């Protein structure tokens, strides 16, 4: 298969970027993927567009669940051929460039993009499908949700008519932002945290909710009927994705509702590219692991799965997943700058009442304080293995902040 060709200026920029990436790796500064990409983009701003040219691309954005959904999109697309994908989660333009530069042959691409860089990513990759998962407030960069929604609205107004926006109809903010998109396909993607979507972004009235359905009494906007939705299927962890052409059932290795809902987004997206749902569904169901995210770790008869959580919506969804599956949880929280545990305080940890929750990590004291405030007793353990052994044998969900997730993904992978 032909390699994606780039012009000499972009080729030179990519070479400079590769050299910088190797240097950065040699210096021990991360994977090198970001630094190499950044230098290449500075040398030739068109490099990303040139690397994306000629590929059929699905972009995935939103606040939560991007990496998982992107992996499921990539799996679904593979039914039609090899897929380029930024699997490590490097989702800013430089990370995307690095992923596309590393795979010049795949004619399909599944790309996760940071919500703040959507305009650049759309302009450079001309996606055939754009998946928009949700819009929650973010806590690390001080970017207002209103600014992100206005940015998305401007993107939607200029979208090519060949691009299908696959959007979460359960999120009224996403629906408003992409009102002007020429082609829209709706997925009932759920909204684990409603506080951020209390007000209609169009008129300022408070939304009225009835189950997952929302309605604005001010301007009359209402939840669009979904084209794709998830319902319980056969078996204890079975699911069925319903769509206009029928239903697909199976099971996913990804825990909680994230798996089947992500599958619905993925199948809707590849459906927009004309990839048949049946073959794509089989591949999506086979996904067990997303960049180490859902790989189960076995510790003394406990089967641990890690969840990385960064905002109240994420914590709330993880707590709900543990409760629905009746699986015990461990909290693993590490040090991560001044705000490292701030987002935990609003999450509904009182739903875990009834047992003692094992906590571990350099910020275990904070986890204990958060749980105490929610009326939940905790017990601190020196390391994650000890915390897991405090749980009954069987499945355990380990709720992690970002650095604890990264650390445990490494340390639990090697035998003690």
């Amino acid at each position, binding site marked *: 298969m032909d390699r994606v060709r780039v012009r000499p200026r972009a080729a030179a920029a990519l070479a400079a970027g590769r050299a910088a990436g190797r240097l950065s790796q040699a210096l021990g500064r991360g994977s090198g993927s970001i630094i190499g990409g950044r230098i290449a983009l500075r040398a030739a701003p068109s490099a990303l567009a040139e690397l994306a040219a000629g590929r059929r691309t699905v972009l995935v954005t939103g606040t939560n669940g991007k990496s998982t959904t992107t992996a499921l999109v990539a799996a679904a697309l593979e039914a039609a051929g090899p897929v380029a994908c930024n699997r490590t989660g490097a989702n800013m333009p430089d990370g995307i460039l690095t992923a596309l530069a590393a795979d010049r042959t795949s004619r399909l691409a599944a790309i996760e993009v940071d919500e703040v860089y959507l305009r650049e990513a759309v302009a450079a990759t001309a996606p055939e499908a754009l998946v928009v998962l949700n819009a929650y407030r973010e806590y690390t960069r001080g970017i207002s949700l209103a600014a992100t929604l206005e940015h998305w609205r401007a993107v939607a107004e200029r979208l090519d008519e060949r691009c299908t926006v696959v959007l979460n109809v359960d999120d009224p903010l996403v629906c408003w932002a992409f009102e002007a998109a020429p082609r829209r396909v709706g997925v009932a993607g759920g909204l684990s945290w409603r506080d951020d979507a209390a*007000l209609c972004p169009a008129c300022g009235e408070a939304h009225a909710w009835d189950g997952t359905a929302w309605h604005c009494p001010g301007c009359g906007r209402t939840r669009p009927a979904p084209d794709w939705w998830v319902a319980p299927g056969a078996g204890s962890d079975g699911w069925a994705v319903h769509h206009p052409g029928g239903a697909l059932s199976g099971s996913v290795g990804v825990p909680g509702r994230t798996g089947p809902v992500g599958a619905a987004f993925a199948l809707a997206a590849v459906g927009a590219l004309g990839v048949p749902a049946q073959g794509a569904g089989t591949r999506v169901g086979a996904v067990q692991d997303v960049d180490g995210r859902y790989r189960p770790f076995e510790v003394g008869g406990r089967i641990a799965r890690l969840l990385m959580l960064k905002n109240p919506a994420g914590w709330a969804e993880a707590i709900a997943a543990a409760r629905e599956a009746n699986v015990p949880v461990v909290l693993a929280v590490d040090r991560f700058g001044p705000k490292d545990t701030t987002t935990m*305080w609003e999450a509904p940890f009182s739903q875990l009442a009834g047992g003692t929750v094992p906590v571990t990590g350099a910020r275990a*004291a904070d986890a204990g304080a958060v749980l105490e405030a929610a009326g939940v007793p905790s017990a601190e353990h020196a390391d994650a293995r000890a915390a897991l052994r405090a749980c009954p044998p069987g499945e355990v969900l380990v709720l992690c902040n970002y650095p604890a997730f990264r650390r445990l993904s490494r340390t639990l992978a090697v035998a003690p």
Partner: protein
Amino acid sequence: MTALRIATLFPLATVAAGDEANAAALVRRAAARGLTTTTATVHRPGAMAPAEVYLLGGTGRSGTGALVAALWAVDLPARVAAGAVVLAVDAGLDALARSWVDPAGREQAGLGLLGVQVGPGPRITDTVATRAAGELPAMVGWVAHDVTTRRDPGVLALCQVERGQAHGPLEDDGVLAERIIATRLHGPVLALNPELADLVLARAVPGLPPAPVPPEAARARAQRLDEVRAAPQSRRRRR
């Protein structure tokens, strides 16, 4: 006995910083004295919930204009004059000041409930340790802003800063007024520092008996205080 009403005002107007959890922290400290409470979150002036304690928060300059407009619409100054107590964190402090600075750097009028002028400053993100004084022990929290805060003569600071950057190069934080307590500290500040929650409560319900601080919260705070005191003085974190 009537319940103490606590209302969080317009949290979606400003950039999120976890301050909505201050309401639950107040509820816990009230419950420790057997006080019953109700809580409400007010998103629109048309749905205003009257309360004895109002909570404001959030960060950044981008939402302050909307917050000021909403607070005028519910006539917060009249509610304070009638006896309501306010905790104002960061963007909430800006809104209550005589003046604040918008994203373009222009000076704008605030509600004028605090004798404070807010101006542009260097961008700062840091963990802050404060000094014990009066009813308040050494407290901990974090700041993230790009403003400076100048108090009028005679306006009291809430506390002195031991480590970290509160108002930029200044060495104190916040405002302690009769009915308004203002701070730059997030955390959430009342969850990490229950004594500050007690100070807010005492403004609304005088004569509260003391209540022990939960050991879990005390330990979490002590750990952060130890860390920030051990860190090199000049180090600024940029997260």
